[in-house]
């Protein structure tokens, strides 16, 4: 089977880049005999075309199309997102013309069926996983990274994109909440983030440093009131760091009982639970990118009608 994979988002600094790059690597490694993976955005001679992001979905795909939709937040909370014009509607129209839709959690699968004209049988849940490099680091490595980024000795951590103030991430509210331990925010920033009160910003960091920053944190605090998957939570667990998260169905699905859940409205309670978190953290889910890739190849096969 010849699969054309739209790899454009693979270098994106956000979660979408993590998904596309980890999946691309694992797809190459798990390709079966006769399976060919080609990177491109125009499936000329493909049996299946996969857009791992909504922006790659084609309105008139020349072959069966698979799209990965990471969440439907813009459909659920239209007033908070600016992309509501004709282009926005065309994108979702293109998504509806997919043979298969991959979503990261069962919660998102339900929402997709509710908000889009697509049959439940066409929606496949494939969990995301931790990038292999994100592992617990040795104390000297953690100390070196702490010096390099001027991090406090003991801190609570949040990881994610800080280029736009995404309301569902609730990071501005988190920064304003009184707390006992300093708060470190990791992720690419734009000027607004530098106006957040009393936080340490690192900007975007390489994976080795990210692993050390995770390892050195007291806990990851994750106050989102909506997520598609919540990848930083499993990354933290992979680095041995406890997770304190808002109690939303997606995170319950992904983490089970591996995290402390706090009512999303109670940010003070969330931060206090973070400060009280104890190591060792539970092990992360065993699901790997290799598992995700094998499941994705099966989706290609179903979409192509084989």
């Amino acid at each position, binding site marked *: 089977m010849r699969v054309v994979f739209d790899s454009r988002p693979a*270098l994106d600094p956000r979660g979408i880049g993590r998904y596309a790059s980890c999946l*691309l690597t694992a797809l190459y490694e798990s390709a079966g005999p006769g399976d060919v993976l080609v990177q491109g955005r125009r499936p000329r001679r493909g049996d299946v075309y996969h857009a791992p992001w909504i922006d790659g979905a084609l309105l008139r795909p020349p072959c069966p199309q698979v799209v990965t939709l990471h969440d439907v937040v813009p459909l659920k909370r239209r007033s908070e997102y600016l992309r509501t014009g004709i282009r926005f509607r065309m994108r979702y129209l293109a998504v509806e013309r997919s043979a298969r839709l991959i979503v990261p959690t069962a919660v998102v699968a339900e929402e997709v069926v509710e908000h889009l004209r697509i049959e439940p049988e066409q929606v496949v849940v494939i969990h995301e996983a931790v990038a292999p490099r994100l592992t617990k680091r040795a104390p000297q490595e953690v100390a070196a990274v702490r010096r390099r980024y001027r991090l406090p000795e003991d801190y609570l951590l949040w990881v994610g994109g800080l280029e736009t103030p995404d309301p569902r991430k609730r990071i501005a509210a988190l920064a304003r909440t009184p707390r006992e331990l300093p708060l470190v925010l990791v992720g690419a920033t734009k000027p607004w983030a530098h106006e957040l009160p009393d936080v340490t910003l690192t900007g975007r960091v390489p994976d080795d440093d990210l692993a050390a920053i995770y390892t050195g944190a007291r806990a990851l605090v994750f106050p989102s009131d909506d997520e598609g998957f919540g990848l930083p939570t499993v990354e933290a667990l992979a680095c041995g760091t406890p997770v304190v998260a808002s109690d939303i169905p997606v995170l319950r699905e992904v983490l089970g009982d591996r995290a402390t859940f706090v009512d999303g409205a109670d940010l003070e309670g969330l931060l206090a639970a973070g400060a009280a978190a104890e190591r060792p953290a539970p092990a992360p889910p065993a699901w790997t990118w290799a598992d995700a890739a094998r499941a994705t190849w099966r989706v290609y096969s179903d979409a192509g009608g084989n």
Partner: protein
Amino acid sequence: MCAVAHPGGAEIGLLRLARRLLARGHVMTLATPAAGPLDEAGLPVVRLALGGLERGAGARAAASFPRARRLAAAHDLVYLNGTVSGRLLPGLAGRRTILHVHDIVDRVPRFWSRADAVLADSGAVAERLPGLHAHVVFCPVELDVAPAPAPWAPDEPGRARRRPVVGFVGRIEPRKGPLDLVRAAPLIRASLPDVRIVLVGDDPYDSAPDYAAQVRESSDVEHIPWVADGAAVMRHLDVLVAPSRQEPFGTVLAEAMAAGTPVVATRVGGLAEVVADGVTGRLVTPGEPAELAAAVLEVLAARERMGAAARAHARQFGADAYADRVERILLEAAVARA
């Protein structure tokens, strides 16, 4: 003592050393198993069979023990270039010997400890030689390379500026990982549309025809057949990529840096010892196309700074510095009291 008649990396290094030792007044005889290009190196040559290169063929080297002993008696020191030559060690009791290990080995025969000194191409090689106190000497590269034109077609005329060139130089086989650069190529091009990505090399042993075909048939890169002087290619590149899955040293990296070309290499074996990560290039995880592409783009953006640092960093790998290091060890071994 050399185990092969046709020069590979280990033999090229030996010749670079021999040329300098000759100039410094040492007298040498080269032993090889058969006639070949090494005979033209300007050293007196004798024939000495060591059995084949395959494992298990070593027992046949015992037939050469008497001849090796006679040769050794006529010299102060026997330099065993590579582990296959090391098969002579049991027959050289009482003679001064140096064993030079070029590969990351899985198994250390007990008789290797009979060598008076052991040389290793990198810390990664030395790490696999427990108890032998191997000296890490690196591999020698010539710092002055005769300029030669680039082996690929020039940019189409009428361009305001030269297109950046990302290159791979080496054998087209899985261990060298060129397919990983092919897979990273669309990602690099997505950010830098006018980039040229050239792969220079062949699969001379035809060891993995399917793999080589995948690389050759890709339309994402330009494939150039093997060139005689890889070092001369380096100055035409803006970044050299070495995506190897395993590598004891990585001579291409040292050659590229000597030419002022920054590098992107995988974090495996000796490669991490040759590259100063973030200074002379970037180190990446093997088999991760997106990480490789991001590193290439990062190095291209810092090409001038990293290129200058690379040139300075590469001096330690120069053949003259190498000859100084090895000569000192040879002299110490030759005069050491047993």
